[in-house]
């Protein structure tokens, strides 16, 4: 207990008079204070050594997977709006393999999901899910560093080997897909409401345009907002240095000080955009499409000419999973070209299976009316199937070498978003 004014007589009276319970509680607090040293080691270090050679990695894979068998069930944790609510894909999976799936949309954002599962994984307990989807970035790296993820047996991933796009087989955050394979990718660009914005924005500079004073939304996530500041200055985020961050922060601070920014959003920017509280905003590619489909809005999304970030949500198996074989079977199932196509038709994020485009195009040829229009739109959408030109403009999040570097980065940019 920390009572900085313990000498206050009123306080002492209140705490001691005729109140057995409280006095007892206080004694107990004294005991607990003695146990402070014990509590001090409440958060232990759990960093583990990573395999350094592929042979070593291979032996880890064999050690983990030997003796594991199919159990007939898998618990899948995913994000909202990441599958058709009728779950046609999962029904098909159960029909094909006999494995039942419990699908829960329990992941709202990476930090809180990490905070939720970390204590259980640290204690070696089950998190009740065999398969989960986490974005590349800080928390993904920490899951790997802490040894919480199962090394994947690629012999069990034939569809992935055959159908995944080359780009998705060698991502910088998990080279060789040791721990993860992509679920979907998306881009962070600029969304705008054409009702209020006459000239479509094309560059980062539009977010600094005084014309839109008080009507610009920015994201509060340090990585996302930093990237926009860096792009605006023509710096590649992945190669940026501390000096670059300071410059980007100054640029973002100027935008804030000029009153251009309405608010720093976590993820609830799409409704204010549709309502006209903000006119243009940083946004994730799929959100705009889904909002347009579900609410009949006419919001637009552009990749600014300076560049934009691409991120990848990845499927992975936590170390304490009860049904790893069923989980990896399901992971591979989503790399079936047909399944990937159907999924992309609904979620409208970038699919890691390029051949899915043909499936969607074929579906579009068969469909009529509104459906056909929609499917043609998906097959032709650069947000689902980015062109090489788009990819050339897309950059990844900054990977941090040390926690100190990360902390420095966060403190520079959070000074702007949480002032």
């Amino acid at each position, binding site marked *: *207990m*920390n*009572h*900085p*004014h313990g000498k*206050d007589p*009123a*306080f002492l*009276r*209140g705490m001691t*008079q005729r109140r*057995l*319970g409280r006095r*007892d*509680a206080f004694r*107990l*607090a004294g005991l*607990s*204070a003695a*146990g*402070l*040293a014990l*509590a*001090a*080691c*409440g*958060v*232990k*270090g*759990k*960093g583990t050594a990573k395999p350094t050679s592929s042979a070593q990695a291979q032996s880890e894979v064999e050690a983990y997977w030997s003796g594991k068998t199919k159990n007939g069930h898998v618990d899948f944790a995913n994000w909202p709006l990441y599958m058709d609510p009728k779950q046609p894909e999962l029904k098909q999976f159960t029909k094909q393999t006999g494995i039942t799936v419990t699908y829960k949309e329990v992941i709202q954002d990476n*930090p*809180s999901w*990490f*905070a939720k599962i*970390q204590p259980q994984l640290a204690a070696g307990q089950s998190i009740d899910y065999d398969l989960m989807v986490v974005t590349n970035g800080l928390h993904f790296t*920490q899951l790997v*560093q*802490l040894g919480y993820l199962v090394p994947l047996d690629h012999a069990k991933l034939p569809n992935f080997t055959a159908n995944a796009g080359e780009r998705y087989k060698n991502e910088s955050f998990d080279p060789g897909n040791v721990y993860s394979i992509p679920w979907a990718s998306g881009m962070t660009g600029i969304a705008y409401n054409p009702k209020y914005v006459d000239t479509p924005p094309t560059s980062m500079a539009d977010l600094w345009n005084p014309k839109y*004073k*008080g009507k610009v939304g920015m994201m509060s*996530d*340090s990585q996302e907002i930093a990237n926009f500041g860096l792009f605006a200055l023509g710096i590649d985020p992945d190669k940026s240095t501390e000096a670059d961050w300071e410059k980007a922060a100054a640029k973002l601070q100027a935008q*804030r000080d000029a009153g251009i*920014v*309405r*608010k*720093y959003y*976590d993820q609830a920017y799409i409704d*204010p955009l549709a*309502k*006209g*509280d903000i006119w243009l905003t940083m946004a994730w590619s799929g959100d705009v499409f889904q909002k347009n489909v579900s609410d009949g809005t006419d919001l637009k999304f552009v990749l600014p000419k300076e560049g934009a970030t691409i991120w990848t949500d990845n499927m992975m198996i936590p170390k304490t999973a009860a049904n790893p074989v069923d989980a990896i079977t399901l992971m591979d199932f989503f790399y079936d070209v047909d399944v990937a196509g159907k999924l992309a038709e609904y979620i409208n994020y970038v699919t890691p299976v390029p051949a899915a485009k043909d499936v969607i195009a074929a579906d579009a040829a068969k469909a009529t009316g509104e459906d056909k229009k929609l499917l043609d739109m998906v097959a032709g959408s650069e947000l689902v199937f980015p062109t090489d030109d788009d990819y050339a403009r897309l950059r990844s999040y900054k990977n941090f070498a040390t*926690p100190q570097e990360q*902390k420095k980065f*966060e403190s520079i940019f*959070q*000074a702007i978003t*949480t*002032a």
Partner: protein
Amino acid sequence: MSRLRASLTPYALLFPGTLWLAIFFVIPTVVMLSLSLQSGDVVNGYAFTFNWHSYVDGISTYHDQIIRSLVYGLASTLIQIVIGFPVAYWIAFKGGSRKSVYLFMLLLPFLVSFVLRTISWQFFLSDNGLLLGPLKSAGLVPQDFHILATSAAVIGGLAYNFLPFMILPMYVALERIDPRVLEAAQDLYASKAQTFLRVVLPLSLPGVFAGVLMTFVPATSDYVNASVLGGTSNTMVGNVIQNQFLINQDYPTASALSFTLMALLLVGIFAYARALGTEDVLEVAAR
């Protein structure tokens, strides 16, 4: 034997509550205090190092947000007293046989989740929403006028969200006033204003005090209103703490800020109790 049993009875009665407090209040508080003095990071672990820097750095970096939270908390509490007192007074003295109906109506909106209520305010107050849309098209307010993303929106949200916790204790205090006391005041030729100022108001003060305790503390540490209704310059210390815990995983700074806030609130409450001339704060709060 029976004497022993009798002397043990109070302890037996206190046991569940004490155990509950110990497990869910004392231990977490001690762990938090310990955390606030540790240094390290999630991957490499935290170690107890008497790292007072979390306090120094936390306060020097976020003093603006701390002060803002106290100001918002105070402003919303004052608004609640101004709005709530007449309501409580009316229900207590003029409510008649329908008192419980009025109280229920008062509580009805609060059966809806806290976050949802705040979001519905966001809908209502949006730039072209139910309130401002018609006003703007009628030309009564300028086109770029907005309520959301201002201090007023956050303070208003706080005042709204905690209002019943202000009204109910005040109502209880007012309702307890014996009507004969008021009759006595009239018999002694007190005017209506005098009766109110010299009889009703002093007797209602414990209720006001309890109401302030129950609203000022949660309003000051709230983060939902600021994140839903606020803009770039309305961040409260609750938002910072949430950020430090969940996004940065900087547990020491988050804990240090929590303790700083707790200390400030305690100091504020006891100073307030003094100013009000209350002898025993907790006694009053327990009424």
